[in-house]
């Protein structure tokens, strides 16, 4: 059977699409409330830091950020192609590398907390 690297790209994409759909709207709502001056108590430094310092918190944050980054990178690649930017190998390389760098950076920041 022919081997394909597509599942490697596709699994995080589908998982990321689901994670974005379930989590990102409410996270944007929270930061938007903060921006409008109604800072939720949970976004204060103490509570955010305590959440990110716990093992479960690190896992949740990393899962949401890394999967969302990967899914967005894959979708942006398709968007570029659909808007007529046909240098797909270049676009894919740039976006996937960006997603991997962003995920690694998130892991490093989380480990520092």
């Amino acid at each position, binding site marked *: 059977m022919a081997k394909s690297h597509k599942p490697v790209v596709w699994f995080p994409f589908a998982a990321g699409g689901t994670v974005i759909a379930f989590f990102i709207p409410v996270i944007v709502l929270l930061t938007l409330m903060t*921006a409008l001056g109604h800072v939720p108590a949970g976004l204060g430094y103490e509570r955010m830091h305590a959440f990110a310092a716990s093992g479960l918190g690190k896992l949740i944050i990393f899962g949401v950020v890394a999967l969302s980054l990967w899914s967005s990178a894959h979708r942006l690649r398709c968007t570029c192609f659909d808007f007529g930017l046909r240098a797909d190998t270049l676009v894919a390389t740039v976006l996937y590398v960006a997603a991997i760098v962003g995920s690694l950076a998130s892991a490093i*920041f989380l480990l520092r907390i």
Partner: protein
Amino acid sequence: MSRRPLVRECPPTTWYFRQPRYLRYMSREITSIFVGAYCVLLVVGLQRLAAGPAAWEGFLQALRTPASIMFQFLALVAAVYHAATWFNATQKAMPVQIGEDFVPGSVISGAHYVAWAVLSLAILYLAGVF
């Protein structure tokens, strides 16, 4: 012998203006730009959180500029649109069969909407909004 195969003209940058459904497809594609940019904001936020209380407060302050509010508003619209279209697609992407019959698509998508609402409210509660 000459043959002229049918070659459909497809302008690479303007094809989606031909059909309303192509435009709807592209309007969903565009949401990835805002969601992707927002993910970068999340990574920056993590860096600020790791840098200490002053850096985190500075990050929360920086969210309040008019440009940032505008961006977050657009990101919210994009994220909700992405979520709604994603949940509408679930009934096509993963049909559930029980015995001979398929579970109605509205039930599958509806279950996702309910789960979305419950999860969002739970997160708002945990974040201390109410």
